[in-house]
Protein backbone atom coordinates (compact mmCIF):
# COMPACT_ATOMS: atom_id res chain seq x y z
CA UNK A 1 0.00 0.00 0.00
CA UNK A 2 2.77 2.42 0.94
CA UNK A 3 4.97 0.59 -1.48
CA UNK A 4 2.66 1.61 -4.28
CA UNK A 5 4.50 1.93 -7.54
CA UNK A 6 8.25 1.54 -7.54
CA UNK A 7 8.66 2.72 -11.12
CA UNK A 8 6.69 5.83 -10.45
CA UNK A 9 8.69 6.51 -7.30
CA UNK A 10 11.93 6.02 -9.16
CA UNK A 11 10.93 8.32 -11.97
CA UNK A 12 9.84 11.03 -9.60
CA UNK A 13 13.16 10.99 -7.79
CA UNK A 14 15.22 11.54 -10.90
CA UNK A 15 16.74 14.98 -10.80
CA UNK A 16 19.47 16.35 -12.98
CA UNK A 17 22.50 18.31 -11.94
CA UNK A 18 20.82 21.70 -12.33
CA UNK A 19 17.90 20.59 -10.12
CA UNK A 20 20.45 19.46 -7.58
CA UNK A 21 22.18 22.82 -7.64
CA UNK A 22 18.82 24.55 -7.42
CA UNK A 23 17.95 22.51 -4.33
CA UNK A 24 21.28 23.30 -2.69
CA UNK A 25 20.82 27.00 -3.47
CA UNK A 26 17.30 27.17 -2.01
CA UNK A 27 17.08 24.58 0.77
CA UNK A 28 18.01 27.14 3.38
CA UNK A 29 15.51 29.63 1.99
CA UNK A 30 14.48 31.94 -0.82
CA UNK A 31 16.21 35.32 -1.18
CA UNK A 32 14.26 38.20 0.36
CA UNK A 33 14.54 40.21 -2.80
CA UNK A 34 11.74 41.54 -5.02
CA UNK A 35 12.83 39.08 -7.72
CA UNK A 36 13.96 36.05 -5.69
CA UNK A 37 14.03 33.64 -8.62
CA UNK A 38 16.27 36.01 -10.58
CA UNK A 39 18.70 36.03 -7.66
CA UNK A 40 18.79 32.25 -7.60
CA UNK A 41 19.18 32.18 -11.39
CA UNK A 42 22.23 34.45 -11.19
CA UNK A 43 23.91 32.06 -8.75
CA UNK A 44 23.27 29.10 -11.02
CA UNK A 45 24.06 30.83 -14.26
CA UNK A 46 20.68 30.06 -15.81
CA UNK A 47 17.65 32.23 -16.61
CA UNK A 48 14.97 33.14 -14.07
CA UNK A 49 12.35 31.53 -16.24
CA UNK A 50 14.25 28.25 -16.16
CA UNK A 51 14.43 28.47 -12.36
CA UNK A 52 10.67 29.03 -12.18
CA UNK A 53 9.96 26.23 -14.63
CA UNK A 54 12.12 23.79 -12.69
CA UNK A 55 10.48 24.77 -9.39
CA UNK A 56 7.01 24.33 -10.92
CA UNK A 57 8.00 20.88 -12.18
CA UNK A 58 9.38 19.84 -8.81
CA UNK A 59 6.14 21.05 -7.19
CA UNK A 60 4.14 18.95 -9.66
CA UNK A 61 6.33 15.92 -9.00
CA UNK A 62 5.95 16.55 -5.25
CA UNK A 63 9.73 16.78 -4.82
CA UNK A 64 8.79 20.13 -3.31
CA UNK A 65 5.94 19.74 -0.86
CA UNK A 66 5.23 23.44 -1.11
CA UNK A 67 6.97 26.79 -1.12
CA UNK A 68 6.25 28.80 1.96
CA UNK A 69 6.97 29.76 5.54
CA UNK A 70 7.73 27.32 8.36
CA UNK A 71 6.42 28.66 11.67
CA UNK A 72 8.29 28.24 14.93
CA UNK A 73 5.52 26.74 17.07
CA UNK A 74 7.23 27.49 20.34
CA UNK A 75 7.95 31.14 19.52
CA UNK A 76 4.36 31.64 18.37
CA UNK A 77 3.01 30.58 21.75
CA UNK A 78 2.44 26.87 21.13
CA UNK A 79 4.54 25.77 24.08
CA UNK A 80 3.10 22.30 24.64
CA UNK A 81 4.20 20.00 21.85
CA UNK A 82 2.84 16.57 22.59
CA UNK A 83 3.46 13.36 20.75
CA UNK A 84 0.34 11.33 21.42
CA UNK A 85 0.81 7.61 20.84
CA UNK A 86 -1.94 4.99 20.51
CA UNK A 87 -2.33 1.25 20.50
CA UNK A 88 -5.02 0.50 17.92
CA UNK A 89 -5.89 -2.70 16.01
CA UNK A 90 -3.53 -3.10 13.03
CA UNK A 91 -6.34 -4.18 10.72
CA UNK A 92 -8.16 -0.88 11.31
CA UNK A 93 -5.18 1.44 11.36
CA UNK A 94 -5.65 3.03 7.95
CA UNK A 95 -9.23 3.96 8.68
CA UNK A 96 -8.41 5.22 12.18
CA UNK A 97 -5.27 7.07 11.12
CA UNK A 98 -7.17 8.98 8.47
CA UNK A 99 -9.84 9.95 11.00
CA UNK A 100 -7.31 11.20 13.54
CA UNK A 101 -5.38 13.00 10.80
CA UNK A 102 -8.40 15.11 9.91
CA UNK A 103 -8.66 16.64 13.40
CA UNK A 104 -7.63 20.25 12.99
CA UNK A 105 -5.25 20.26 15.95
CA UNK A 106 -3.29 17.21 14.75
CA UNK A 107 -0.32 18.33 12.67
CA UNK A 108 1.24 14.98 11.77
CA UNK A 109 -0.20 11.49 11.93
CA UNK A 110 1.72 8.29 11.20
CA UNK A 111 1.67 4.55 11.59
CA UNK A 112 4.92 3.28 13.14
CA UNK A 113 5.98 -0.20 14.31
CA UNK A 114 5.33 -1.44 17.83
CA UNK A 115 8.23 -2.83 19.88
CA UNK A 116 6.54 -5.27 22.21
CA UNK A 117 6.38 -5.46 25.13
CA UNK A 118 7.94 -2.06 25.96
CA UNK A 119 6.32 -0.09 23.19
CA UNK A 120 2.79 -1.19 22.27
CA UNK A 121 1.87 1.92 20.27
CA UNK A 122 1.42 1.89 16.50
CA UNK A 123 -0.29 5.25 15.79
CA UNK A 124 1.43 8.60 16.38
CA UNK A 125 -0.35 11.97 16.29
CA UNK A 126 1.39 15.27 17.06
CA UNK A 127 -0.58 17.98 18.84
CA UNK A 128 0.48 21.56 19.42
CA UNK A 129 -1.17 23.58 22.16
CA UNK A 130 -0.58 26.71 24.22
CA UNK A 131 -0.18 24.63 27.37
CA UNK A 132 -0.31 21.06 28.61
CA UNK A 133 -3.89 21.17 29.81
CA UNK A 134 -5.04 22.23 26.35
CA UNK A 135 -2.93 19.43 24.85
CA UNK A 136 -4.56 16.94 27.22
CA UNK A 137 -8.00 18.10 26.07
CA UNK A 138 -6.91 17.43 22.51
CA UNK A 139 -5.72 13.99 23.59
CA UNK A 140 -9.14 13.32 25.15
CA UNK A 141 -10.78 14.21 21.84
CA UNK A 142 -8.59 11.74 19.98
CA UNK A 143 -9.44 9.10 22.61
CA UNK A 144 -13.13 9.81 22.14
CA UNK A 145 -12.79 9.50 18.37
CA UNK A 146 -10.99 6.14 18.65
CA UNK A 147 -13.48 4.84 21.22
CA UNK A 148 -13.13 1.12 21.91
CA UNK A 149 -10.36 0.81 19.31
CA UNK A 150 -8.07 2.63 21.73
CA UNK A 151 -6.30 -0.14 23.64
CA UNK A 152 -3.94 2.24 25.42
CA UNK A 153 -2.26 5.56 24.89
CA UNK A 154 0.31 7.97 26.22
CA UNK A 155 1.46 11.55 25.62
CA UNK A 156 5.13 12.49 25.41
CA UNK A 157 5.86 16.18 25.78
CA UNK A 158 9.10 17.57 24.48
CA UNK A 159 11.14 19.23 27.20
CA UNK A 160 14.28 20.17 25.31
CA UNK A 161 15.49 20.44 21.75
CA UNK A 162 18.84 18.66 21.73
CA UNK A 163 19.56 19.19 18.06
CA UNK A 164 17.76 20.77 15.17
CA UNK A 165 19.78 21.05 12.01
CA UNK A 166 17.00 20.45 9.53
CA UNK A 167 17.07 17.75 6.94
CA UNK A 168 19.98 18.22 4.61
CA UNK A 169 18.77 16.79 1.42
CA UNK A 170 21.46 16.85 -1.14
CA UNK A 171 24.82 18.22 -0.24
CA UNK A 172 26.77 17.12 2.78
CA UNK A 173 28.84 20.26 2.70
CA UNK A 174 26.45 23.00 1.79
CA UNK A 175 24.16 23.21 4.74
CA UNK A 176 24.14 23.90 8.47
Amino acid sequence: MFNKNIDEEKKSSEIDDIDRQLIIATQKGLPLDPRPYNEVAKKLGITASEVRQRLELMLERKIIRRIGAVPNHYRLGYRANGMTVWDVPDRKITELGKKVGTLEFVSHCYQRPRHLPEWPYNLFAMVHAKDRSEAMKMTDKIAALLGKDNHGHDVLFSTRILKKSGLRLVSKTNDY
Partner: protein
Amino acid sequence: MQLDSLDRQIINTLQKGFPVSERPYHDVAEILGTSETELLSRLRKLLDDNYLTRFGPMYQVEKLGGTFTLAAMKVPIERFDSVAAYVNSFYEVAHNYQRDHDFNMWFVIATEKKEEINNVIDRIKTLTGIKVYNMPKQQEFFIKLQLHV
Protein backbone atom coordinates in the same frame (compact mmCIF):
# COMPACT_ATOMS: atom_id res chain seq x y z
CA MET B 1 8.69 42.42 19.17
CA GLN B 2 4.90 42.06 19.36
CA LEU B 3 3.08 40.65 16.37
CA ASP B 4 0.39 42.88 14.91
CA SER B 5 -2.42 41.79 12.66
CA LEU B 6 -0.43 42.25 9.46
CA ASP B 7 2.37 40.04 10.85
CA ARG B 8 -0.20 37.39 11.66
CA GLN B 9 -1.74 37.63 8.22
CA ILE B 10 1.69 37.28 6.67
CA ILE B 11 2.45 34.18 8.74
CA ASN B 12 -0.91 32.61 7.94
CA THR B 13 -0.79 33.44 4.24
CA LEU B 14 2.79 32.42 3.60
CA GLN B 15 2.22 29.01 5.16
CA LYS B 16 -0.24 28.22 2.39
CA GLY B 17 2.16 28.68 -0.45
CA PHE B 18 4.06 31.21 -2.48
CA PRO B 19 3.78 32.14 -6.17
CA VAL B 20 6.38 31.12 -8.70
CA SER B 21 6.22 34.40 -10.57
CA GLU B 22 8.47 37.27 -11.57
CA ARG B 23 7.71 39.36 -8.49
CA PRO B 24 6.07 36.97 -6.04
CA TYR B 25 6.36 39.26 -2.99
CA HIS B 26 4.57 41.96 -4.94
CA ASP B 27 1.77 39.49 -5.79
CA VAL B 28 1.38 38.42 -2.15
CA ALA B 29 1.55 42.05 -0.93
CA GLU B 30 -1.36 42.94 -3.22
CA ILE B 31 -3.51 40.20 -1.71
CA LEU B 32 -2.62 41.41 1.79
CA GLY B 33 -3.23 45.05 0.91
CA THR B 34 0.31 46.12 1.68
CA SER B 35 3.42 47.01 -0.30
CA GLU B 36 6.17 44.73 -1.55
CA THR B 37 8.73 46.67 0.51
CA GLU B 38 6.67 46.37 3.68
CA LEU B 39 6.11 42.65 3.16
CA LEU B 40 9.83 42.04 2.60
CA SER B 41 10.90 44.00 5.67
CA ARG B 42 8.29 42.28 7.87
CA LEU B 43 9.26 38.87 6.56
CA ARG B 44 12.93 39.57 7.26
CA LYS B 45 12.02 40.56 10.81
CA LEU B 46 9.85 37.48 11.38
CA LEU B 47 12.77 35.31 10.29
CA ASP B 48 15.35 37.26 12.30
CA ASP B 49 13.20 37.10 15.42
CA ASN B 50 12.68 33.38 14.85
CA TYR B 51 8.87 33.49 14.55
CA LEU B 52 9.50 31.67 11.30
CA THR B 53 12.26 29.10 11.12
CA ARG B 54 12.46 29.08 7.35
CA PHE B 55 10.99 30.53 4.20
CA GLY B 56 11.33 28.80 0.85
CA PRO B 57 10.77 25.49 -0.93
CA MET B 58 10.26 22.47 1.31
CA TYR B 59 11.89 19.48 -0.27
CA GLN B 60 10.87 15.89 0.40
CA VAL B 61 13.91 13.77 1.19
CA GLU B 62 12.23 10.51 0.24
CA LYS B 63 11.41 11.75 -3.23
CA LEU B 64 15.10 12.42 -3.78
CA GLY B 65 16.01 8.86 -3.00
CA GLY B 66 16.96 9.60 0.59
CA THR B 67 15.41 7.95 3.57
CA PHE B 68 14.75 8.78 7.18
CA THR B 69 13.46 7.27 10.35
CA LEU B 70 12.46 8.15 13.88
CA ALA B 71 14.45 6.41 16.60
CA ALA B 72 13.99 6.35 20.37
CA MET B 73 16.10 5.42 23.38
CA LYS B 74 15.57 4.98 27.11
CA VAL B 75 18.62 6.77 28.44
CA PRO B 76 19.47 6.62 32.16
CA ILE B 77 19.15 10.22 33.31
CA GLU B 78 22.68 10.41 34.73
CA ARG B 79 24.06 9.53 31.31
CA PHE B 80 21.63 11.68 29.35
CA ASP B 81 23.88 14.57 28.37
CA SER B 82 26.82 12.44 27.31
CA VAL B 83 24.61 10.12 25.26
CA ALA B 84 22.92 13.18 23.69
CA ALA B 85 26.30 14.58 22.72
CA TYR B 86 27.29 11.28 21.15
CA VAL B 87 24.01 10.88 19.24
CA ASN B 88 24.13 14.51 18.07
CA SER B 89 27.68 14.05 16.81
CA PHE B 90 26.31 12.02 13.91
CA TYR B 91 25.89 14.10 10.80
CA GLU B 92 22.91 11.87 9.93
CA VAL B 93 21.01 12.86 13.09
CA ALA B 94 18.89 15.81 12.01
CA HIS B 95 16.63 16.46 15.00
CA ASN B 96 16.85 15.27 18.55
CA TYR B 97 14.30 15.96 21.28
CA GLN B 98 14.16 15.15 24.95
CA ARG B 99 10.72 14.00 26.06
CA ASP B 100 9.44 13.36 29.56
CA HIS B 101 8.94 9.61 29.43
CA ASP B 102 10.97 6.40 29.93
CA PHE B 103 11.59 6.72 26.23
CA ASN B 104 13.28 10.06 26.77
CA MET B 105 15.37 10.59 23.65
CA TRP B 106 13.76 10.85 20.20
CA PHE B 107 15.72 11.61 17.10
CA VAL B 108 15.41 11.61 13.34
CA ILE B 109 18.09 9.88 11.27
CA ALA B 110 18.30 10.96 7.63
CA THR B 111 20.57 9.23 5.14
CA GLU B 112 20.96 9.03 1.40
CA LYS B 113 20.80 5.23 1.35
CA LYS B 114 18.46 2.99 3.29
CA GLU B 115 21.17 0.67 4.67
CA GLU B 116 23.01 3.61 6.23
CA ILE B 117 20.17 3.99 8.74
CA ASN B 118 21.03 0.63 10.30
CA ASN B 119 24.73 1.50 10.41
CA VAL B 120 24.01 4.62 12.45
CA ILE B 121 21.67 2.70 14.76
CA ASP B 122 24.21 -0.09 15.26
CA ARG B 123 27.02 2.32 16.06
CA ILE B 124 24.90 4.17 18.63
CA LYS B 125 23.86 0.86 20.20
CA THR B 126 27.41 -0.46 20.33
CA LEU B 127 28.98 2.65 21.75
CA THR B 128 26.32 3.49 24.33
CA GLY B 129 25.25 -0.04 25.19
CA ILE B 130 21.67 1.24 25.06
CA LYS B 131 18.98 -0.25 22.84
CA VAL B 132 17.82 1.94 19.96
CA TYR B 133 14.20 1.47 18.90
CA ASN B 134 13.77 2.06 15.18
CA MET B 135 10.33 3.45 14.35
CA PRO B 136 10.20 4.29 10.65
CA LYS B 137 6.89 5.56 9.41
CA GLN B 138 4.84 2.86 7.73
CA GLN B 139 1.98 5.09 6.64
CA GLU B 140 1.50 8.83 6.65
CA PHE B 141 -2.10 9.85 7.20
CA PHE B 142 -1.85 13.57 7.20
CA ILE B 143 0.52 16.44 7.50
CA LYS B 144 -1.05 19.80 8.17
CA LEU B 145 0.78 22.57 6.55
CA GLN B 146 -0.55 25.34 8.66
CA LEU B 147 -0.57 26.76 12.09
CA HIS B 148 -3.13 29.52 12.49
CA VAL B 149 -1.78 32.46 14.48
